C-alpha cells in the first residue's frame, strides 16, 4: 500500500519536472532554429552591418535592419508614454477613490477589453485614429501626413495594453496594507500626498513589473500595428512619419518573394532580433526590479 503511494509521489514529481524541461526546451529550440535559419544571411553580411545599415532593399541585396529596430522602439515608446501615466492614474482611482460597486463593475469590463482580438483594435485604428491624426492632430503641429504613422500605431498599441497594465497595477495597489495608508493619513497628509509619497513608492516594483509585461506584449503585437503604422522601411524622424516594426515586417512578407536569395533568411533574422530584444529587455527589467525590491524590503 505504502509503496504504491510513494511510487505515485515519485511519478508526479518526475513527470512534472519532465514537462517543465519540455516547455523550456521549446524556447531553446525556437532560438536555435532561428539562428540556424538566419545563418546564410549572417554568413554573407557582418552582424554589425546588418544592425546599422539603413537601407532595406532585398531585390538589390540590401538588408538593413535599423529602420525596423527604430520602428519597433518608436512605436513601443509612444505607446508607453501614453499608457503608463493613464494606467497608473486609472488604477489609483479604482483602488483609492472609486466606490466598491464601481470598482467591481469596471474591473470585469477591463478584462473583456483584454480579450478583444487585435484585429478589432486595428480596424478601430484605421477607421478612427488614422483619420483623426490626419485631419486634426497633425494640422495643429503644421505637419502633413497620411495618418498612417508611428503615432497611430502608438495610440492603438497603448489602448491594447491598457487592460493588462490596469489590472496588474490594481492588484499591486490592493496589496498595500490599509494601515500603511492610515499611518500617512494620521500624520495629517492628504489622500493625494499619501498616494504620491507612500502608495506609489511602495507599488513601484509592481508598476515596473506591469510595464515590463505590457512592453513585452507591445513589442510583439502585430496585426493591429501593421494596419495603422504605414509600413515604410525608413527610420521615422517624427511621430507623424510612417514606421515599420519588426513583427509587421515578418507578417507582411512571410511566404512571399521567397525566391529572392537570402530573403527568407533575412526574415528569420528579424524574428531572431525580436526574440533577442525581448529577452534582453526582460533581463534588464529583472535586474532593476531586484535592485528596487532590495532597497526598501530588505
Amino acid at each position: 500500500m505504502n509503496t504504491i503511494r510513494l511510487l505515485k509521489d515519485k511519478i508526479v514529481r518526475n513527470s512534472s519536472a519532465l514537462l517543465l524541461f519540455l516547455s523550456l526546451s521549446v524556447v531553446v529550440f525556437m532560438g536555435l532554429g532561428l539562428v540556424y535559419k538566419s545563418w546564410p544571411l549572417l554568413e554573407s553580411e557582418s552582424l554589425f552591418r546588418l544592425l546599422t545599415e539603413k537601407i532595406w532593399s532585398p531585390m538589390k541585396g540590401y538588408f538593413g535592419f535599423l529602420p525596423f529596430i527604430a520602428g519597433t522602439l518608436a512605436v513601443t515608446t509612444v505607446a508607453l508614454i501614453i499608457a503608463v501615466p493613464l494606467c497608473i492614474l486609472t488604477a489609483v482611482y479604482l483602488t483609492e477613490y472609486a466606490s466598491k460597486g464601481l470598482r467591481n463593475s469596471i474591473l470585469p469590463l477591463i478584462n473583456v477589453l483584454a480579450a478583444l482580438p487585435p484585429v478589432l483594435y486595428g480596424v478601430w485604428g484605421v477607421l478612427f485614429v488614422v483619420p483623426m491624426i490626419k485631419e486634426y492632430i497633425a494640422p495643429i503641429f503644421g505637419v502633413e501626413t497620411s495618418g498612417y504613422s508611428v503615432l497611430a500605431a502608438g495610440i492603438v498599441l497603448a489602448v491594447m495594453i491598457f487592460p493588462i497594465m490596469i489590472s496588474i497595477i490594481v492588484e499591486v495597489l490592493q496589496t498595500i496594507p490599509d494601515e500603511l495608508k492610515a499611518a500617512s493619513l494620521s500624520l495629517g497628509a492628504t489622500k493625494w500626498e499619501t498616494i504620491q509619497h507612500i502608495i506609489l513608492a511602495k507599488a513601484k516594483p509592481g508598476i515596473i513589473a506591469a510595464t515590463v509585461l505590457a512592453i513585452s506584449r507591445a513589442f510583439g503585437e502585430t496585426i493591429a500595428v501593421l494596419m495603422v503604422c504605414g509600413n515604410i522601411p525608413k527610420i521615422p524622424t517624427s511621430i507623424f512619419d510612417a514606421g515599420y516594426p519588426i513583427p509587421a515586417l515578418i507578417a507582411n512578407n512571410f511566404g512571399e518573394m521567397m525566391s529572392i536569395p537570402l530573403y527568407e533568411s533575412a526574415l528569420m533574422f528579424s524574428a531572431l532580433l525580436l526574440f533577442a530584444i525581448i529577452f534582453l529587455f526582460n533581463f534588464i527589467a529583472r535586474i532593476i526590479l531586484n535592485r528596487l525590491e532590495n532597497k526598501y524590503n530588505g
Partner: protein
Amino acid sequence: MHAVSSSKTEKAQDVNTQVQSHIVIRDLNVHIEGKHILKNINLDIPNHSVTSIIGPSGCGKTTLLKTLNRLLEDVSDVSISGSVLVNGEDIYAPDAEVTHLRKKMGLLSQKPFPLPMSIFDNIAYGPKIHGIKNKKKLQEIVETQLRNVGLWEEVKDRLDASATRLSIGQQQRLCLARGLAVEPEIILGDESTSALDPISTQTIENLLISLKDAYTIVLVTHILRQARRVSDYIIFVYNGEILEFGKTEDVLLRPKHEITRQYVKGFIS
C-alpha cells in the same frame, strides 16, 4: 445633536470633576454596513493621562479609537452621528478640516508600518508635509524625536538606511517618533504592543508613561495587565456600549457591573 442628556454622561463626568477633559464625546453612534457598532457613546477623556479602552474582541474598541481621528471614514459604508469635541472643537462639524485634526493625533497601530523610505525620511515626512523645508530644522526634529523614543543611539549612523531593516521593536519606536514629529496633542494606540516581544513591549509602555505629562494618551488594549500597568483611567466597552469608565483601580478592583467583573476575572474574553 450636541445635547448632553443621558445618565451615562453624568457618570462619565463624575469621574472628571477634578480633571480637564481633552476629548469630549457626545451621543456618538456608528453604523458600519448597516450594523450598529457603537451605541450612544458619551465620554470625557481627561487631559495629560493614559486612558485605556478594554473589552472583548469585536466589541468596538478599535472603532471607537478610529472615530477620534476620523480614520473610520475611509472604510466604505460608514455612518457616524453625534459629536467628538477636541479642545471644544467638533471634529465632525462640516467645516472641520480633517488633515488639521489628524495632525493633532499621533496614531500607533497594531503592527509597525514604517513608510517605504529611509529612517530619516520616516520622521521628516510629517513635518515636510506641513511645510517645514529647512534642512537643518528637519535634522533637528529627527534627532529630537529619535532621542525621545530612545532610538537615536541605535540608528544615528544609518539614518539613510531603509526603515524596514530595523527590528520590529525598533520599528514601533520609529513609528511613535514619526507620530510625535508633527507635534500632536494626543497619542492614539491601537494594541500597539501586540506584535512585540516582552522587552520591546516594556520599552513602549515606559515611553507612553513618560509621555503622558505632555500628551493625552488613549490606548486600545486586550491585555488587562498592560491596562493596569500604564493607564490612569479605564473604559470598558461591551457590545458597542460603554459599560464602565473610571479610575484604573476602581474599574479593575471594584467594578460596578457584573459583566465588567466577569471580564476582569477572565470569564469573558
